[in-house]
C-alpha cells in the first residue's frame, strides 16, 4: 500500500488550486505536503489531521467509504475516507481558477485504490 500511495499522488500532481494534502492511515499520518508559502506546514498538517478526525467522529459514516467537504471562507478541505480507514485530505483554495474536476477525480481514484 505504501508504494501505491507514494506513486498515487505524484502521478496526479500538480493540481491548480491544491495548496496541501495529507494521507492518513488509521494509526498514523502517512504523508503531508504543503505547496503554499503562505501556509505554515505545521498548522496545515494540524488542520488536515483535525478535520479528518472531527469529520469521522462527529459525522460518522459507519463502515462505509465517505466524502467530507469542509468549506471555509478562503479555503476548503475535501476528504475521501476509505472503508479500510485510509483517508486523503486535500486543502484547496477558494477561487475560480481551481481545477475542481481534477480534485474530484483524485478523490475518486483514491477511493478505488487496491485495499491495504
Amino acid at each position, binding site marked *: 500500500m505504501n508504494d501505491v500511495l507514494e506513486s498515487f499522488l505524484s502521478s496526479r500532481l500538480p493540481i491548480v488550486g491544491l495548496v496541501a494534502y495529507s494521507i492518513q492511515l488509521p494509526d498514523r499520518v502517512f504523508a503531508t505536503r504543503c505547496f503554499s508559502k503562505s501556509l*505554515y506546514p505545521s498548522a496545515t498538517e494540524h488542520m488536515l489531521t483535525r478535520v479528518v478526525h472531527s469529520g469521522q467522529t462527529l459525522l460518522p459514516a459507519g463502515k462505509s467509504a465517505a466524502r467530507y467537504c469542509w468549506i471555509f*471562507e478562503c479555503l476548503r478541505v475535501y476528504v475521501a475516507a476509505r472503508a479500510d480507514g485510509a483517508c486523503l485530505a486535500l486543502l484547496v483554495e477558494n477561487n475560480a481558477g481551481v481545477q475542481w474536476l481534477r480534485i474530484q477525480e483524485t478523490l475518486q481514484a483514491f477511493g478505488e485504490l487496491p485495499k491495504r
Partner: protein
Amino acid sequence: MQEEGSIRKQFLIVDDDTEFLAVVAAALKKVSKGQWAIRTATNHSQALEQLKAQPVDTVVLDVEMPGMDGIEFLRLLGRTYPGQQVVMLSGRMDEAVRKTCLELGATLYLEKPIEFRALFAALDSLAGAAPQSGFRGVMQRVGLEDVLQMECLAGKSSLLVVSTGNRRGQIYICNGEIIHAQSGQLQGEMALYGLLALTGGEFTLQPFAEPARRTISGQYQFLLTEAARLRDEAGSQSVRQPRSLGRAGDFGAASVETPATTEARGVRIEEVLLSSSAGEVLYQWKCESIESRLELFKKLEQQAMEASKGTPSGRFHRVSMDTGNSCVLVQIQPTFRLLVRSALPAPPPTHE
C-alpha cells in the same frame, strides 16, 4: 436631445478590424446620444499616440491583435498609464486569458460578438454613469457575475433584477456586499447560486431598496467563487454517472439542482433542523434528537475553529458528508444553524 456641450466621456477602442471599429464607434455615439467621444486605433502605436495626445476614460482593447497581442499591450498600458481603465474584448471566452487580463488590471473582459447596447451598458457603468435611471444588459454578452463584481468592487448599492422566460429573481447589493437574493421560493445563497447558474436572460440594474430581510452575509468574492465552482461541477457532473461517489460531497451543489433533477435522482430528505445561533429551534422535521443535534452544531463550529487556527481559512461555513447512499449537511451561519440529512435509494441490483 442632448446638448453637444454636455459632459462627454472619452473612449478609445483599439482593434485591427477597421469595419468593426467603424460600426461600433457609430453605434456607441448613437446610443450615448452624442454624449460619448469615441476614438479608434487599429494598432498599438496609434493607440499610444492617441493616449499621449489626450487621455481617455476607458480603453476598449481587442485581445487578438497581430504583432503585440492585447495582453502584452495591456501590460504595457499598466506600466505607462497606471490606473487607466481598460476593457478587454475577445472573440473567444478563454478562462485562463480572462483571468490573466483581470490580474493585469483590466476592469472587464467581454466576449465578441457583442451587442452594442450591452457594450454601452457595461461601459456606461464603468464610466460612472448615474445608476438611478437603471440600465439593461444581456447576460449572454455581459456576464451577470461581471456586473455583480463591478458593483461590489465599486462599493455600490443597487438592486439587480434578473429575468428569463420563466424565472425572475433579485440580487440586493449594499455598499459593495451582496446582502440578499431571492428567486421564486428560494432565498439567500441558494437563490443567488441559482440565478448565477442561469445561462441566458436579461438583467436590469435598479436603485437599491432595502429587502424585507437580509439573508446573505458572506464576502462577495467567496460567493462568486462558490457560484462558479458549483456551475463547473454541475457542468462536469452532467457527463458523469449521477450516483457516482465522484459527486461533490458538498450540498451546495445539490441544493441548486432543480426539483425535477433531484426527484429524478430519488433524493429523500430524512431530517431537517434549523436553529438560531442561540440554540432556539426555528424549524424541525423528523428530528429524533434535537438536543444531540444542537450539540453537534456547537462541536462542529468549535472543531472547525480549532482546526483552522494558524491558517488563513477565514470563517467556517459548512461541512457535508456523503457516502453515496446518505448525506448530511451542516451549515453554520452567524445567525442560524442548519442540518439536513438525506438519503438516496439503493442502486438496483446488478445481475451477473
